[in-house]
């Protein structure tokens, strides 16, 4: 159970596929327009429930509860060995003669 007042993330379909505008490429046209946003939960609920939240601006939004205390996991990626080759190459060109 997620308690009222907890910081949560919700998900909502803004436009169903059939409600989307006609000027889209087919791949976009065939999927819904979805939204994610965050706020404080206004009543106790379970993950997956339809809930209402209050944003940091005091605005209310509804959607499906998907996460409590959401956090970011983006990072610096995995190793790209090519970057080490670039370093070696350009340092050689610029400073090579002074070794």
């Amino acid at each position, binding site marked *: 159970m997620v308690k009222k007042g907890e910081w949560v993330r919700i998900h909502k379909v803004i*436009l169903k596929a059939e409600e989307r505008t006609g000027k889209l490429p087919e791949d976009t046209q065939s999927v819904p327009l979805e939204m994610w946003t965050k706020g404080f939960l206004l009543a106790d609920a379970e993950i997956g429930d339809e809930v209402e939240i209050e944003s940091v601006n005091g605005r209310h939004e509804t959607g499906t509860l998907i996460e409590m205390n959401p956090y970011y996991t983006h990072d610096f990626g995995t190793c790209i060995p090519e970057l080490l080759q670039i370093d070696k190459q350009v*340092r050689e060109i610029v400073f090579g003669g002074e070794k």
Partner: protein
Amino acid sequence: MAKLPQDYDSVMSRTQEVMKAALGIDYSQFESGSMAFDYEKMMRETGYSLEEMQNIQYSVNVGNTPILELKNLTALARACAPEGKGARIFIKDEASNPSGSFKARRAANAVYHAKKLGYKGVIAATSGNYGAAVASQAAIAGLKCIIVQECYDSKGVGQPEIVEKARKCEALGAEVVQLTVGPELFYKFILLLEETGYFNASLYTPFGIAGVETLGYEIAMQFREKLGKDPDVVVCTNAGGGNLTGTARGLIKAGAKNTKVIGASIDLSGLHMASDKAFNLKSCTTGHTGFGVPYAVDPDHSDVPRSAARPLRYMDRYVTITQGDVFYITECLATLEGLEKGPAGNTSLAAAFALSQEMPQDQTIVVQETEYTGAGKHLQPQLSFARENGIEVRFGDPKDEVPGKSVIIPEHPSLIKAKDMDLDRQKRSLIKGNLRKYTMNPTEEDYKYLAEETKKDIEWVKKAVEEVKATL
């Protein structure tokens, strides 16, 4: 008050009135009733004087960023250039603005204006650095802030660079509304403006664009102080056109009449910008031709009735560069100059590296921005994200790069080339759009307007109008 209908068509039909309330500008006062509108009047009456803008920006710690000479990168360019060529490369370190990019200049003015008019908050629709800039300025001003982002594909996979920008906006106190791919972002944007009554801190208002004029002005002043002359070339990354427009106007206001302004975009030709599948096949989220070209030839398809960003008025050349070139140069900046900056801002740097090799060694070329870097917003996550999405990342000749399929990292810096776009073709395209939208029979005022819009003389415009009409 009864709640207004929330369906797509009903909401979009209220766009005009919502926009008027959210901008506080009556654009009709600048219209002629035909193609022409009075751009300078719009900039004068709704913008701010250069001095006012400087005062606004300096009071919130925006602007006065240093210009750095990139001596080692210049040496690398000279090693690749013909004898005697290789202009000195300089960079304006805009990452030292409070939010980490030149966008702080635009946001400072927009937020100042919103506060002056009594709005309680600001909203901006942006997946770029502008979001953090508005959030940062709103935090200083004590205004509420909502940023609406196009961030995810239909599988819920976020572009790392945009996810980082969301994090930064939240860190600066903003509410971030994230959406999947599609131009109907504008629908949610209108709904939010209507619901909150906040100010539309659009990227394309006169105050936003005028905010960048200080950047061009500072470049000229700093150059005169440092080198006793104006720069020969200033290169601007071009997406929505505001960066180039504002910088060029600032240079003109400083009297730097002989400085050439060159636009640079990453070549993403062939990728549809509203495609869900193509969304995460891009390794850059801005500064590319997918924004640069459509906004240049049709500035008024932005989120305001008349955009203040009109790059074809100011551009002397428009070149493209590849994603691989930009990543290579970003790495060079770190390893040769000790400066770690975000890759998107280095689009113009990659172009300048190539353009410098066309110019004599005693000339100067200025890259007018850097941007902050961090998790997601760095060449390593961008390249590993590309690999995860099936993009071929390898060394080779960047001319073989196919956007959406490969990122070719130059196997030697001499392979980095700036490719000229056909500016006349874009100017004809702008004329075509105007003929279609307004009238097939332009007035004399319209011809004069089109000449200003295309940086051409009236004779060229009249000939182009006849040629374009024959194709319609």
